[in-house]
């Protein structure tokens, strides 16, 4: 039988086997896949936004990293990725991380509504500080999940630190007991996105003979530190919803020749707002003013921009020039009964304050209605700008107020109207509460950062939805703008999201300690086998009743 012969064969083989293994093992290792095991944790994460404004870089400049995870307190070098809750990190800590750390991973709060006012304020200020300058390290945001909570807790209580920890034995025990995490994001290097901002406009023509035009404008994008999570309910879903609702109300009034108002109404929705210096409005104005047929913007009575009108029931009128008594803007102001907030245009600033300044530069009477007191309010660019019922109700009230003021200006009504007229008036100007709330909810459920809406084609997504709705009331023109090739006004960069892998690992020293432990164990086994015959003798004596053993 071949097995009997194999004894001799095995003898030959025994001598050579180690050498064969020496060749075969490396070949096996090379042949087998590089990363044969999946990570224990996989998360989808969102990258901090990256853009250039007038070639000045902003935001996060890189995307990929493969670093060891550390907590806010234990990180020390650029080989560490700092993992923290967004509530926990202070602005000073962020500045230090920006300068020295390898990457930053921030976990968003579990539930936005559970945050205290201070925490909200803190997050908003942090966002402002983060976007001020460029960050060379990759910065990612992740939605809260129980797994992340565990990882953060592990990292916070981890004893893996670089500084001396008591005795050597203590340090050794720490390396065995604590968990390390290797955090890996593989993403393409940031690339310029092909951004095509659009402007939607439609006109309700007034009674013939009067060329007066009132422009009602709003931008419908949002701005936050994370493009994928910028819901922008107040800024500026509210303004866009108001434009849609005003278009609906006045299209009904203007459809009948008998009640058609004198001035024409021009409704405008721009896709790039305050974060990118109202680029859409600027381009659109250039196109309209330079075209041979400049009839659209002839004799503009005033331009009313709507921005962030849902955060409180009171409105402010922001102007660059105080409205003159007797002028149209003054008439609206007195009909609305709002406070005037005067701020001169400062062209030296990086960003214009409000959208109306784009029109004011072109020497039109323009103002912005907003619930906010100042354009610097941090709530205009935050991830916490979410949908809420209270805000939706504010929005309904504010739209009703604006519709009334606008109508009374257009029809030049005074306060002394008879009850019968007031009834008719109320009937014609009722806002459709359900529709407003529905639109407000829809828009604030969509991420509408310029990184998303100006990159997708205008026939898809939010832009298309707005266009379809507006075209129910009037003919809508979609103008697509292009960024200058040589001197781009702004540049947006992808990617906006990535997949993050977390591997639990042990420090390198751990393997050495493990080797020592295994060696000790094997020595023990060796002696146990060596001593087994003696043990067997003793044991046999006991079992067989202490009889003689040879």
């Amino acid at each position: 039988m071949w097995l009997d012969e194999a004894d001799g064969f095995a003898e030959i083989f025994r001598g050579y086997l180690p050498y064969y293994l020496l060749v075969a093992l490396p070949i096996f290792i090379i042949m087998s896949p590089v990363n044969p095991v999946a990570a224990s944790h996989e998360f989808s994460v969102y990258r901090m936004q990256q853009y250039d404004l007038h070639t000045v870089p902003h935001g996060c400049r890189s995307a990929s990293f493969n670093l060891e995870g550390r907590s806010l307190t234990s990180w020390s070098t650029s080989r560490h990725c700092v993992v923290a809750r967004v509530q926990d990190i202070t602005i000073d800590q962020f500045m230090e991380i920006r300068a020295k750390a390898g990457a930053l991973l921030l976990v968003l709060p579990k539930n936005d509504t559970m945050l205290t006012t201070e925490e909200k304020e803190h997050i908003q200020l942090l966002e402002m500080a983060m976007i001020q300058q460029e960050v060379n390290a990759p910065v990612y945001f992740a939605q809260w999940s129980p797994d992340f909570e565990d990882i953060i807790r592990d990292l916070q209580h981890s004893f893996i630190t670089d500084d001396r920890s008591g005795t050597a034995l203590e340090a050794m025990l720490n390396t065995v007991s604590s968990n390390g995490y290797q955090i890996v994001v593989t993403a393409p290097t940031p690339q310029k996105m092909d951004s095509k901002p659009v402007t939607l406009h439609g006109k309700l023509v007034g009674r013939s003979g009067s060329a007066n035009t009132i422009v009602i404008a709003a931008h419908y994008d949002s701005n936050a530190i994370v493009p994928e999570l910028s819901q922008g309910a107040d800024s500026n879903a509210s303004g866009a919803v108001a434009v849609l609702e005003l278009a609906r109300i006045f299209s009904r009034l203007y459809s009948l020749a008998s009640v058609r108002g004198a001035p024409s109404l021009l409704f405008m929705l721009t896709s790039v707002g305050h974060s990118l210096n109202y680029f859409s409005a600027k381009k659109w104005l250039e196109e309209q003013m330079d075209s041979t047929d400049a009839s659209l913007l002839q004799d503009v009575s005033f331009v009313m921009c709507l921005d962030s009108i849902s955060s409180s029931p009171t409105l402010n009128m922001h102007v660059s020039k105080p409205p003159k008594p007797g002028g149209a803007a003054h008439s609206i102001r007195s009909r609305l009964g709002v406070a005037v907030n005067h701020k001169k245009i400062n062209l030296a600033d990086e960003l214009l304050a409000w959208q109306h300044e784009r029109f004011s530069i072109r020497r039109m009477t323009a103002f912005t209605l907003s619930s906010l007191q100042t354009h610097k309010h941090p709530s205009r660019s935050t991830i916490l700008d979410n949908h809420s019922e209270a805000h939706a109700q504010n929005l309904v009230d504010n739209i009703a107020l604006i519709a009334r003021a606008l109508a009374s200006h257009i029809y030049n009504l005074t306060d002394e109207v008879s009850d019968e007229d007031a009834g008719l008036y109320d009937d014609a100007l009722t806002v459709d509460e359900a529709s407003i709330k529905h639109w407000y909810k829809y828009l604030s459920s969509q991420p509408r950062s310029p990184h998303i809406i100006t990159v997708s084609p205008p026939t898809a997504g939010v832009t298309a939805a707005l266009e379809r709705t507006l075209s129910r009331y009037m003919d809508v023109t979609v103008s697509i703008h292009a960024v200058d090739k040589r001197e781009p006004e702004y540049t947006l960069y992808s990617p906006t999201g990535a997949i993050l892998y977390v591997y639990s690992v042990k420090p390198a020293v751990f393997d050495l300690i493990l080797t020592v432990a295994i060696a000790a164990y094997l020595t023990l086994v060796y002696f146990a086998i060596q001593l087994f015959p003696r043990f067997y003798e003793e044991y046999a004596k006991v079992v067989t009743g202490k009889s003689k053993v040879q």
Partner: protein
Amino acid sequence: MTLYHFGNCLALILAPYHMAYKYSGISEYATLSKCVYAGGLYIFTQLCKMLLLATFFPDTDSNYITGQYNVFLEILKATVDLADLLGMYFALNSVPGKGHAKILTSAVGWACAEVLVSRSILLWVGARGSEFDWKYVRSCAESNVALLQHSATAALVWLWTRSDLPRKHSPIVVSLLAITPYKGLIEDAIGSVLSLSAWAMLGLKAIHTTAISLTALGMYAVLAQQIQ
């Protein structure tokens, strides 16, 4: 984790097997081929068991997902492991020589084949990845316990085949052999009742196996003395 870690695990698994082969004296009988034969029998037995399980038992993979645990079915499946004893019997028969050489040779061959077939793949795939998990180190330590366990089983089977086995020992041998297939189930049950951690489970297995081994060794000693 790393290749180094893989080396660590490999040392923990293989060194005791090597020492058991080298220093227990069976290598003097030049029985490497018998070890290989025992290993081959192990693989053949496993194939037969798989065939049995696949043919006569319902598909239980879906139960993993739903989390159901059918005790009766598990016991039935464990019963198939009786085939292991049969395989061990053939392995013992094929090895010539004295009792202890028979037992150790088939046990080492059997356990080596088990490591090769069932544990090495897991190690190769798992312990080399960048993810660290204690379970690989644990599985290596477990394979050491398995060596002891297989030696005990081999000793019991050998004892059972002896016609000169003392009459009073015979029920102990038979009952221990009957329990062998259900060993894993019993340990799991104790573990879940006491809600033991994975390391405690390993300790439990080691204690259990040691107890069985010592009993088998005692009976072997008695028999060995009789023969002399």
